[in-house]
């Protein structure tokens, strides 16, 4: 019974990892590759580590597997966010079929800081604020 559960869990996990590997090879764009890879690979590794935790009866091994799974689950989104932000800042090109880019013009080129509102809107507001002052 336990063997069957382990076989099913590891099969699902390995299929998720295979999908991640195919995705990183076939996707047209860095950002699409990132979005495919991180989620599927974390799911696959987590399922394989879970089957490992079921397989061994010792508490020490189960704890270790749980710790690795927790660490992967905690760090994978952070690392993906960091590398995605860096890729956008260093100007990695988007796929030509991309419909909209919400971050366009939102980053300050010098300080790499994300502003809460669009630069054009800010410029318009500044112009509108200055207009009455000059008139008065």
């Amino acid at each position, binding site marked *: 019974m336990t063997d069957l559960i382990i*076989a099913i869990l590891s099969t699902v996990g390995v299929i998720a990892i295979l999908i991640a590997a195919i995705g990183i090879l076939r996707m047209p764009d860095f950002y699409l590759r990132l979005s495919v*890879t991180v989620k599927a690979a974390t799911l696959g590794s987590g399922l394989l580590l879970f089957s490992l935790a079921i397989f061994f009866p010792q508490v020490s091994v189960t704890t270790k597997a749980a710790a690795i799974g927790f660490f992967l689950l905690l760090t994978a989104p952070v690392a993906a966010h960091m590398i995605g932000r*860096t890729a956008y800042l260093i100007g990695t090109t988007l796929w030509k079929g991309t419909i909209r880019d919400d971050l366009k013009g939102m980053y300050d080129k010098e300080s790499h800081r994300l502003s809460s509102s669009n630069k054009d809107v800010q410029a318009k507001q500044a112009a509108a604020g200055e207009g009455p002052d000059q008139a008065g």
Partner: protein
Amino acid sequence: MSLSLYIDYVILPILAISLLLVFIRLFKGPTIVDRVIALDLLITIGVSIIAAYSISTQQSTFMDVAMILALIAFLSTIAFSFYLEKKDQDD
């Protein structure tokens, strides 16, 4: 069909094929960030391979290596993104 045989003949070969596919992206990768995420994925698949191998051989010694690998994957990705951004800012 025992569990050990199933893992040896089904799970581990599929993981090896995934490693190969990721390696193709690692060599092809048009930009450096593609290579960074390919490396990250390679290490994550390495952790999975260690898990499958531990079930197959019924030895839990390799788990420590998996823990260190997970740590290194995170640190390398963070370091790469940090220094790539710094390099771009300096130019």
